[in-house]
């Protein structure tokens, strides 16, 4: 049954993307580790970490597409779930440093030592075990999504209002994590990690594994999302997206459906965050900033919302552009990003992938084709 659930999600586009992602997950580490450095096919280390980062962003974009593309929930606070997952992982990595910190304190992280903390706060307990941290990576974002989403959807907060209070949520968390009294390292966040499960986080092998894991997360996310979307549940979600009141009147518990998909999405974002931290080497409150969450929305929009594959393409493409621009034409980066927002919403409302499929569908259909364009999903 479970296999059935996943297999149903595999349309042609998704299966192709899955194959590609898996190929990348294998190929990139091979090009990095096995191919000798002098060879033109060798992939330098810095590109490996860069790709690893893109992969985690792709997973975040996928999570966002699940709620926005298929359920019409435009969350401007998904960065918060991403960051919470990241902090859970960061706390584990922090505890792994042990006596190798500058002050050599076996229990307290460095930032607690120089701010005169005497003992580890209770919410840091347990994070020295990987299993506990791994559970927290999904549990904390999931719980937050459950409480927040449960409340909001039950009260029928929708559309713009929902977007704005998700923004308020991530903003409040941003301010809270900035506070040094919170015990999460304040503005500096958590950094200077050494080991993960006994492997050096800076070793090439660890990096390659983390990269592959990130790709596998994207693939798994794609499978699960595909499964959800193509199941009966998915049809209800789309119904909610297109006509919420009608779906409610038919008798579906709209709030429950929405909460469910919101929680799944938050958990996926949390896992993405957890993989992001060891590859980037730092987690700090900046990840909670509303601008980050809005940027994630544009990845989805560029790739094409409601396509599952689109957000992955969008996340990689936009971030590639960002890397390139901030290196080559630093002053022009914000102009380019800004223009991208405007142009995509104006001329590519369905994103790259959506537009591509429309075009393909139009070509396949025998002329004269139906002149009415495919309906644009309502907000």
């Amino acid at each position, binding site marked *: 049954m479970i296999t059935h659930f996943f297999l149903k999600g595999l349309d042609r*586009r998704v299966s*192709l*993307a899955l194959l*590609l992602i898996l190929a990348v997950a294998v*190929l*990139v580490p091979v090009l990095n580790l096995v191919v000798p450095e002098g060879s*033109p*096919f060798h*992939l*330098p*280390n*810095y*590109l490996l*970490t*860069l*790709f690893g*980062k893109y992969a985690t962003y792709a997973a975040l974009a996928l999570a966002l597409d699940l709620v926005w593309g298929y359920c019409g929930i435009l969350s401007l606070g998904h960065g918060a779930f991403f960051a919470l997952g990241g902090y859970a992982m960061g706390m584990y990595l922090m505890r792994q440093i042990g*006596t190798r910190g*500058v*002050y*050599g*304190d076996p229990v307290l992280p460095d*930032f607690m*030592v*120089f*701010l*005169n903390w005497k003992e580890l706060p209770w919410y840091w307990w347990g994070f020295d075990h990987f299993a506990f941290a791994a559970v927290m990576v999904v549990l904390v974002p999931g719980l937050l999504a459950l409480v927040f989403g449960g409340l909001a959807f039950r009260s029928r907060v929708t559309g713009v209002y929902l977007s704005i209070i998700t923004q308020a949520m991530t903003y409040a968390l941003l*301010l809270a994590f*900035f*506070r*040094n009294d919170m015990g999460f390292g*304040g*503005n*500096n*966040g958590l*950094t*200077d*990690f050494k080991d993960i499960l006994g492997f050096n986080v*800076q070793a090439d092998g660890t990096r390659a594994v983390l990269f592959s894991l990130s790709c596998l997360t994207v693939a798994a996310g794609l499978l699960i999302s595909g499964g959800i979307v193509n199941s009966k549940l998915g049809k209800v979600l789309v119904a909610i997206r297109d006509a919420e009141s009608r779906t409610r009147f038919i008798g579906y518990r709209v709030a429950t459906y929405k909460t469910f998909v919101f929680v799944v999405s938050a958990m996926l974002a949390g896992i993405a965050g957890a993989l992001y931290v060891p590859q*980037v*080497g*730092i987690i*700090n409150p*900046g*990840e909670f900033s509303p601008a980050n969450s809005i940027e994630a929305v544009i990845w989805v929009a560029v790739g094409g919302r409601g396509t599952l*594959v689109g957000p*992955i*393409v969008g996340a*990689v*493409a936009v971030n*590639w552009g960002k*890397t390139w621009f*901030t*290196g080559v034409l*630093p*002053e022009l*980066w*914000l102009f380019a990003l800004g223009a991208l927002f405007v142009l995509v919403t104006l001329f590519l409302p369905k994103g*790259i992938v959506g537009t*591509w499929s429309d075009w393909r569908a139009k070509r396949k259909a025998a002329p004269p084709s139906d002149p009415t364009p495919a309906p644009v999903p309502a907000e």
Partner: protein
Amino acid sequence: MNLNEKLLGAIIGAAISAGAFATAADAADTIKVGVLHSLSGTMAISETTLKDTILFMIDEQNKKGGVLGKKLEAVVVDPASNWPLFAEKARELIAKDKVSVVFGCWTSVSRKSVLPVFKELNSILFYPVQYEGEESERNVFYTGAAPNQQAIPAVDYLMSKDGGDVKRWVLAGTDYVYPRTTNKILEAYLKSKGVAAEDIMINYTPFGHSDWQTIVSDIKKFGSAGKKTAVVSTINGDANVPFYKELGNQGIKATDIPVVAFSVGEEELAGIDTKPLVGHLAAWNYFQSVKTPENEAFIAKWREFTKNPKRVTNDPMEASVIGFNAWVKAVEKAGTVDTDKVIDTLPGIETPNLTGGIAKILPNHHITKPVLIGEIKADGQFDVVWKTKDLVPGDAWTDYLPGSKDLEADWVTLKCGNYNTVTKKCG
């Protein structure tokens, strides 16, 4: 072929070719210098000037014939005030662009973010901003002030008769690591000087705080207890303008409650009407108004380079200049840009600073600096009212915090950044 397939293919192709290009373009006729300062986002306000400073220094050096007979070439990237992006860009500079040295970072978090990258890829970072100390890394040279080169002398001045014989203290700061640590150090220091706990008020505000009404009126209340009161401000960049505006408007004059700031320089004052602020103080290691031939020549050339006859200079700029000059000297002395050799050569290098003294790179990778206290003048410049007699050597580990008083940094003999003098062990 599917579009995503095509796209991914194109991306991977581009990645590989970019990597290959980087290795091929390793031309040996220039020495590359990385500049890692935010040009957009919240920190652009402070960091853009430092980027210009390094470009200016490179230009000047190239006019003199470059270094080791090669021209210097700047590689400028924009980490966009985004801390993880700092790490990514640092990696790009070192691994892809193969720069020999990087000048960059402003905030502590950006430095902490790039630190693992510099250690892993073994390169050199010159960090030009005053900071909270508690760090000494082999790959980093700290040309800004450590707390003992800014905070403690400033408090000493205020406690002296000339400074107003201050007995009551408000430590106001933005809630991040630099103010937290500095205030911890100052609190311990003040208590060691006999200041009672109820005479110290500590207050933290978020970044970019703009509504200072309550806090300023609290300060006013705290200051009317009959003892001379001063405010030690570690308020960060953006929040300063509304803070000073509120001070001016609520009529707090420097003669009543002086404010001594550690993060307010000429650049920050350029955005404020300074007439109500005359007499408030700032502690730095350099002021534009210092009258030395070196400084006047520097300002003239700088204004010519930026084509702006009103362009101001400030302390982190001087720190960038010192860092740059020290690096050039070390490279010339070592005869190579090889990272390890330059790191080993740098301690002991002496280069004149702009205030008429000598900046010497110490074994703990900090430098010697004079400490100057300036009073704000009506034209937005500072009037130096006090100066340490000798140069103060930067101390990486403060003597006033229990965790760090036993630690010592020495990269020449001990080869260690955090040697514990009690356990006689490194780390």
